[in-house]
């Protein structure tokens, strides 16, 4: 699955995009799995209330299942306009 990071999440994790091989059932499971891997992930994901997630380019939430999802993106609250 492709995992994308934007804004300060991208800066903390150090890459804009990576392939992740995971059996995580939900977004929250994926976050736990990545956070356990390396400190930079734990740091980026330390406060989930400051993060948003999109699944296949639609806003979603951390309880959502990853079944069939090809692209997950993590980013801070948006500041468009």
């Amino acid at each position: 699955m492709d995992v994308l990071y934007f804004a300060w999440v991208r800066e903390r994790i150090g890459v804009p995009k990576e392939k992740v091989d995971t059996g995580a059932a939900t977004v929250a499971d994926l976050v736990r799995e990545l956070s356990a891997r390396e400190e930079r992930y734990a740091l980026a994901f330390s406060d989930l209330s400051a993060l948003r997630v999109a699944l296949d380019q639609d806003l979603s939430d951390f309880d959502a299942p990853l079944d069939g999802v090809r692209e997950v993106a993590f980013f801070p609250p948006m500041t468009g306009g």
Partner: protein
Amino acid sequence: MRIVVDAAVFDPGAELNGFSAGVSGMGAVVSFSGIVRQSEAGDLEAMEIEHYPGMTERAIGKIAEEAQARWSLGDVLVIHRYGRLVPGDPIMMVATAAPHRKDAFEAAEFLMDYLKSRAPFWKKEQTRGGADWVAARDEDETALSRW
């Protein structure tokens, strides 16, 4: 409906005229243009706008469709830039055309409120002292509750 997500500068006046010329039977056209504002300290050197290619167009398209479903509109225009901008540059623009002014105004405000908090753009301000991501404002999130 026209949605433009581009790094290039645009001309708000030419866009307004092109938009108005393309609608007929509409008595009211409302436009909003957002401009990079100099900071109060006067030290803003640039505003870097990052976005999520693919999702951006999709998210804006959904917001524009929602506006067209809620109000009686002749057409909707959304332009949003990304990349490096400097104070005074146009950032974005929305325009709405409707038979009556109330629909045109409400739809334009709805579009702006949703673009602020639901379109995947992130702003980073670069000043002499360094660079900081602009934090989302609570009032922008609560602005959504009126719709």
